[in-house]
């Protein structure tokens, strides 16, 4: 399978990298793990004139916990590095589990969290849990950087807030929080190597049996990962019961607009949203960050 040719750069610093992007113009692209972009290039969907590899920017690989900032994950951290990170497992096991549900071992060894976000496909596995946990991303440009909540990062199918001709996503931060539990559950057609037919993430803040706060995010059922805000409102301030969770699940169905495709019909996806919302909530409420 033919891979079109391109110029290749491997800058030694972030400043050099953003400078190169500016200089190379609109048809240059950033190369992180390559598991999405090389597939797109082989399939003829993308033909960048140049690739700017981030492989020498080792500082973008780090995963750190800081009491003030929270969990900061460098954009180049691979899915397996996130999955196996002791600090991620200790703080947000749910994120580690979400990373584990993604693709297969070989892809998880190369694919990065930054790439998973920038690729911006509706069925991506990391965005729902990151949105439920209130994460934000840092986008570094040549002269300044900005932060964008993951929730407003996606603007359409394969579209996001990053300006590819001048910005690089450098970091994903999950701020310190009061949440008591979170989870991401996914339905794929196989246990491994399958895109989500539906993915649901939930993060809850419990006070005994009372739901003080909750965030629910649905993946693969709209053009972008989307919050089920009406379903959240069903729960806030109430004592949880199985009936209440079922009601939240039914409400979540009204928050999505799934398509029918090779992996499942819209009707099937709506049914999955109801059931998986209920299950995700119960898991997060009763089992903590799993």
């Amino acid at each position, binding site marked *: *399978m033919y891979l079109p040719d391109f*110029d290749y750069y491997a800058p030694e610093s972030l400043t050099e990298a953003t400078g190169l992007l500016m200089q190379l113009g609109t048809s240059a692209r950033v190369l992180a793990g*390559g598991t999405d972009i090389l*597939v797109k290039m082989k399939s003829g969907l993308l033909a960048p004139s140049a690739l700017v590899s981030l492989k020498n920017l080792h500082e973008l690989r780090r995963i750190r916990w800081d009491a003030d900032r929270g969990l900061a994950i460098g954009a180049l951290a691979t899915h397996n590095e996130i999955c196996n990170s002791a600090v991620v497992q200790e703080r947000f096991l749910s994120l580690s589990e979400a990373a584990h549900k993604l*693709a297969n*071992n070989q892809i998880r060894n*190369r694919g990065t969290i930054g790439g998973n976000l920038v690729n911006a496909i509706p069925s991506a596995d990391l965005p729902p849990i990151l949105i439920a946990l209130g994460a934000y991303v840092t986008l570094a440009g040549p002269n300044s950087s900005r932060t964008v909540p993951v929730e407003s990062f996606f603007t359409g199918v394969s579209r996001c807030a990053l300006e590819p001709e001048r910005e690089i996503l450098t970091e994903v931060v999950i701020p310190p929080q009061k949440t008591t539990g979170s989870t991401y559950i996914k339905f794929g057609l196989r246990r491994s190597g399958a895109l989500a037919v539906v993915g649901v993430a939930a993060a809850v803040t419990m006070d005994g049996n009372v739901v003080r706060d909750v965030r629910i995010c649905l993946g693969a059922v709209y053009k972008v990962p989307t919050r089920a805000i009406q379903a959240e409102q069903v729960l806030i301030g109430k004592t949880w019961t199985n009936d209440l969770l079922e009601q939240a699940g039914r409400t979540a169905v009204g928050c999505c607009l799934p398509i029918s495709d090779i992996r499942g019909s819209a009707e099937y996806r709506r049914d999955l949203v109801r059931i998986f919302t209920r299950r995700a909530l119960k898991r997060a409420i009763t089992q903590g960050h799993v």
Partner: protein
Amino acid sequence: MQAIADKQGVKRYIISLTVNGDEYSPVIKGNTLLVNLLRDGLDLTGTKKGCELGDCGSCTVLMDGKPVDACLVLALEADGCEIITIEGVAQHGELDRLQRSFIDNAAIQCGYCTPGMILSAKALLARNPHPTEPEVRAAIAGNLCRCTGYVNIVKAVLDAAEVTA
């Protein structure tokens, strides 16, 4: 890595990498994939090409000890890395215990997935010498066998792990 351009202006790069313990400094193009460097450049054809999209795992090699799909790695990205292919698994003409176990368990039918399977299994046993069956299945989930020989493959990996118990 060093960039050079020929008289037609075509850019090439000189990289250095270690493959099965031997150091190489091949001249490659930007769009040369690791799988093609190994097969066409170094004549290590044990690494197979299947889907070439990162789904089937037949091009699995170890890159700094970790299984990766060589069809989705630019040769340029392997600059400075240590690669192990199936040709580097047997040592001094002696089959690795995993290879021996695949033979003993009849875990091979057509053999096309076998190099990738062995390398995924090798990486698993290196980090987890005594895996459970679900752990073995998870480790080889990125390696498709179309002869449906998974039962014997899983048995072979578990048996190889047993030997070191």
